[in-house]
């Protein structure tokens, strides 16, 4: 329905360079296989939406990319660096990938500005002034500059999530990963977070977004990945995905969430 939405970025990305590449990745939790031969790729500047039923492995797929969870088979590279390689400096790699969680996960014991400063100081080695300057720019951008001295628990969910996005951006990441960033939010707060994400996408940030917000997917995604029971069942352009040329499981899933 929204095919002619002219705010949508071009489906053609400028470069075909894979920022994130997953090749035949499998992961087990004990005997249970969570990811089954997953292969996909995210190009520079590309926005990929991941959806699928609960328990299908979406969060796990996101978490193996920056090595928060180990995987047993296959290969993942981020900007050419192998994630699974023993020799890879994972903290350094992670510092180049912003990550936003369903439950915000701000550090509760420090103020908003310190939350955004922390990794800049301890990981990037920026000095206090430099870090604070960058943090304030980002808080300005997400509209929360007046909240900088509060603690996370004093903010609403939507505000906390915007801070979490700023915390990720403060590292000047090469890509951002989002795991259901709006599903813990009250409906009236969803848009304030989606707006920030949309803006990011339009600026050309490389993004992987687990979400069931199909409006967001229609507006900004280039590609949609559909997962089911640990498998990547569909991996196609947004237009293809929404046009009906998709498998039975995806169709079933879509009709379920769209009627909600």
């Amino acid at each position, binding site marked *: 329905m929204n095919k002619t939405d002219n705010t949508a970025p071009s489906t053609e990305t400028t470069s075909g360079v894979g920022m994130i590449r997953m090749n035949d990745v499998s992961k087990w939790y004990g005997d249970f296989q969570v990811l089954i031969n997953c292969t996909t790729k995210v190009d520079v500047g590309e926005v990929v939406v991941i959806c699928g039923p609960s328990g299908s492995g979406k969060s796990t797929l996101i978490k193996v990319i920056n090595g928060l969870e180990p995987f047993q088979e296959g290969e993942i590279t981020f900007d050419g660096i192998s994630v699974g390689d023993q020799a890879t400096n994972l903290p350094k790699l992670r510092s180049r990938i912003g990550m936003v969680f369903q439950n915000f*996960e701000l550090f509760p*014991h420090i103020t908003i500005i310190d939350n955004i400063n922390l990794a800049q100081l301890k990981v990037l080695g920026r000095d206090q002034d430099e870090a604070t300057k960058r943090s304030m720019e980002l808080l300005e951008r997400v509209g929360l500059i007046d909240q900088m001295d509060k603690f996370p628990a004093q903010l609403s969910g939507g505000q906390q999530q915007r801070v979490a996005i700023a915390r990720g951006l403060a590292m000047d990441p090469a890509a951002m990963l989002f795991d259901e960033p709006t599903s813990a939010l009250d409906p009236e707060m969803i848009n304030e977070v989606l707006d920030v994400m949309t803006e990011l996408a339009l600026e050309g940030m490389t993004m992987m977004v687990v979400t069931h917000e199909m409006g967001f997917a229609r507006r900004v995604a280039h590609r949609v990945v559909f997962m089911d029971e640990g498998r990547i069942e569909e991996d196609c352009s947004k237009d293809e995905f929404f046009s009906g040329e998709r498998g039975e499981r995806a169709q079933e899933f879509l009709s379920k969430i769209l009627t909600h």
Partner: protein
Amino acid sequence: MEFSYNWDWSVLFCTVQDVKIGCVAPYFYWIVEGFGWTIAVASAAWVIAFSWGSIIGILRTLEDPIWLRIPVVKSPVNFNTSAIEADNGVVLINIAWFLHGFATIYVTIFRNIPLLVQMFLWYFVLPEVLSKEAGMWLKRELPLPEYWTSVVCLGLYTASRVGEAVRAGINSITQGQHYAAMAVGLTRVQVYRYVLLPVAYRIIVPPLTSDFLGIFKNSSLALTIGVLELTAMTRQIDEYSYQTFESFTAATVLYILVTAIVMFVMRIVEGRVSIPGMISLGAK
């Protein structure tokens, strides 16, 4: 039988005549001195309990492997499953399970042997099982052997309790917080230093307070190996003067006083470190 007792508080303040020593300080001074030793034992033991206990607690939360690189000189050695053979003559050994196991065994042992038995083990048994020189050193050359033995004993015992509190504090922090801290690029040490521990210590202020009070009260067991702390001094006054009630009342009041002060201070500390806007920390 009717209870009759001659209260005489002045006994605490009059000068003591001792047949052998001659004139010594008033009993009151004995109480002050004993109280001083109690404080000295408890606070030194707390330093050990808090720092060593924190390490034990942290070790018990290690889950991810820590690889230690060990160069191999000769033919490939057959290590157990926790070793991975890497290239160019280096074997990687996961020492996390070893550290974790050590801490678990430590806690099990130190928490489950009665403190009095531990006191005797340190004081009477240890010098015998050590080498002759070491045993001699402990008994003869170590200054204040009773004092240091009771400090170490109380410290290591209480460390097992502090360790459990620290472990519980860290474990009550959600997995999501671990992920978030790692995701911004903090190393494992930094994750503990800047995220997990600051939150965990805030959560465990109440159990730490009770562990500190425990060490203070348990310090009275040091009298069994000859430390003249408050309880020992009190008994001594009782033996000299037969004014049992006065001496034990004085000791009781001092114990309660310290407990009250500690609880008051810790309540302020708890308020200071509490996180604005948070009702309960660490709830999953």
